[in-house]
């Protein structure tokens, strides 16, 4: 470079040309259209919240703050509130997470660390399939099959841990003719069924993050004499912590919004006693599904208000989860 500079006449030395990127005509159209769809999706998303907010304003105007403190949802006496529905939703979601978390993490670990390499991709698509099994199917299964089996577990939990207030049921578990129906249609059963549905989502996020754990560090751990579990504990799990937290939160978001399976299993009850094993529970989405058909305009507005609360709730949880997951992935999977 310096040699040619000496030789060339002054003033005509090579300088970097200024490259100006000017999109051609069709590019300009393309970018406008693409940006347009992006904005459209943005508007759509914001629109969901906006529409629900506008439409539910009637209910907020009619019930005011009582809407958040009233436990009853009783249209006959015109007392509608979500003080029981919202905690009910959270309880079912937490049960689902408590059941699904250990299973999800072991499934994810099995697929990413223990399974033979040949069947790995098949197992991943089995997990996808599990996520795509319709919720009505889980609901039917939960109602006709699981419920008959799991009431024994519920009764045993009551017998063994009945001293805990949330595991007690208002009946005598040791009676010879124990009241089976008291244990059916409970938040616990709904939670277990919802767990089946959130498990694949949680597990596939975890698996994805686990399988991205750096190969060099895995091999280093093994070469230093660690066992497979030692390697998992010292490399895979710390590396995948973001995925574990994020995947669980995504599962939580899904559990909060699950509708049909819950609506098929529970029998609605608007009490705030948190007895998870006892007949009767309610969640926001199942409330909407169950009461939608028989609502007047004002009640519909109240259902929309409940839906709005659910929407905001899940949006916050999901966004947080997405941030956690994407942070844990940063630099490894993006920008090829």
């Amino acid at each position, binding site marked *: 470079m310096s040699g040619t500079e000496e030789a060339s006449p002054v003033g005509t030395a090579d300088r970097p040309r200024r490259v100006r990127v000017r999109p*051609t005509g069709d*590019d300009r*159209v393309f970018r406008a*259209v*693409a*940006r347009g*769809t*992006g904005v459209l*999706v*943005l508007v*759509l*998303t914001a*629109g*969901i919240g906006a*529409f*629900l907010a506008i439409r539910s304003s009637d209910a907020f105007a009619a019930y005011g703050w009582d809407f958040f403190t009233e436990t009853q949802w009783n249209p006959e006496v015109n007392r509608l509130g979500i003080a029981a529905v919202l905690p009910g939703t959270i309880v079912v979601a937490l049960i689902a997470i408590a059941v699904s978390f*250990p299973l999800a*993490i*072991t*499934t994810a*670990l*099995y697929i990413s660390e*223990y*399974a033979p390499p040949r069947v790995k991709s098949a197992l991943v*698509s089995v997990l*996808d*399939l*599990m*996520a*795509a*099994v*319709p*919720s*009505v*199917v889980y609901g*039917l*299964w939960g109602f*006709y099959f699981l419920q008959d089996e799991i009431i*024994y577990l519920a009764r045993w939990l009551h017998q063994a841990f009945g001293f805990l207030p949330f595991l007690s049921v208002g009946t005598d578990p040791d009676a010879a003719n124990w009241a089976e129906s008291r244990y059916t249609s409970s938040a616990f059963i709904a939670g277990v069924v919802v767990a*089946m549905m959130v498990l694949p989502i949680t597990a596939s996020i975890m698996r994805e993050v686990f399988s991205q754990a750096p190969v060099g560090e895995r091999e280093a751990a093994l070469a230093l004499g660690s*066992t497979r579990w*030692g390697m998992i504990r010292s490399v895979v799990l710390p590396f995948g912590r973001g995925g574990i937290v994020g995947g669980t939160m*995504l599962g939580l*978001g899904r559990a*909060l*919004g699950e*509708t*049909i399976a819950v609506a098929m299993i529970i029998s609605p009850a608007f009490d705030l006693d948190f007895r998870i094993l006892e007949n009767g529970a309610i969640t926001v*989405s199942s409330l*909407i*599904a169950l009461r939608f058909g028989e609502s007047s305009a004002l009640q519909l507005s109240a259902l929309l208000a409940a*839906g709005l609360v659910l*929407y905001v709730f*899940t949006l916050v949880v*999901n966004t947080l*989860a*997405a941030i956690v997951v*994407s942070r844990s992935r940063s630099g490894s999977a*993006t920008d*090829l």
Partner: protein
Amino acid sequence: MTRTLPEHERVDGFDDDRDSHDTADRGHDDGDHTDDTDRFPRVDEDEPRRVIRARGPADRVALIGSAAAGFALVWVVYQRLLPTSGLLGFAVCWYAAFLLVYTLVTLQRHGAVEVVDRMAAVVVRTGAALVGASLVLVIGYTIISGLDAMQYANFYTEELIYTDPADLRQGGILHAVVGTLEQLAISVAITLPLGIACAVYLTEVGGRLAKVVRTLIEAMTGLPSIVAGLFIYVAAIQLLGVQRSGFAAALALSVMMLPIITRSADVVLRLVPNGLREASLALGSSQWQTIWRVVLPTARPSLATALILGVARGAGETSPVLLTAGYSQFLNANPLVDWQTSLPLFVYQVFRLPDEAMAARAFGAATVLLLLVLLLFVIARLVARGKRGER
């Protein structure tokens, strides 16, 4: 791992020999030792091959033996000594006893580190097996329960019309199948162009706005499906005066499917190597030409997979349809007017009727729905595999 190295001295002896015949025997390393066996009588010939696998036959015996011992122990204690019964309790106790025995057996042969490793392996495998078993249970139970209704041909060719509700030879799910197919077709027609255009925007155009859109899309994939139904009910049915119909249901499904398809298409497009884009641009093509001629064709099989999986998710959704489609027992082939039933909605509505034959019909329809989803999955797998075959 705590495997011992076999016959340490032999390795030393081998090294000594090599030192003395340092230059002459290069071929020795390749295992080519036929002509100098007399000079190196101790080398290679009788050295046992090292087993690299972590588990030997003894471990397998330990595993099976522990399971058997646990079974026997629990059988005696649980069934004979204690006043307990029940299959689930037995299984749980058996598992606990198995873990205990297996721990002790492993502890006898290996150290504590190995015990932890084995326990972790057993627990992880059990967890995964439980999940697999429950999936098989769900699918198997649904299909077996569905056979009652599915064995009659009228189940597929008739609407839900009957004179005697208990007679499975009358009435079927034709109207629901038609509804599902039409609603899915409409929502694919809406979400396919929109979803891919949005994914192209996210990956190819980018910018600060794209980041916001991407975050929102990620959050929207977890949108409760009933909220999508509420939105369409409020925006399309109440505000725009669209009838409760198959079309409204398809709109609700689209709202639900759009983020799912966009997100997976976005992931797929990001996997297209940048080199291809740069090569195309360097040849003088515009960005639009690059995307249309290079990026999208490269990603086509994966895009198809993403779309099919999104459709499979949409096919099973009940709650958006519940609020927007209405429910009808009769065939309505026109999605634009009048109420229309889809398969999941049929299952849900029929389930609520307290009748055994109706339950059989619900299971039958659920099986058909399940088979539809399975079929979509198989197609998606085949499409994805075709891609690998091409390269």
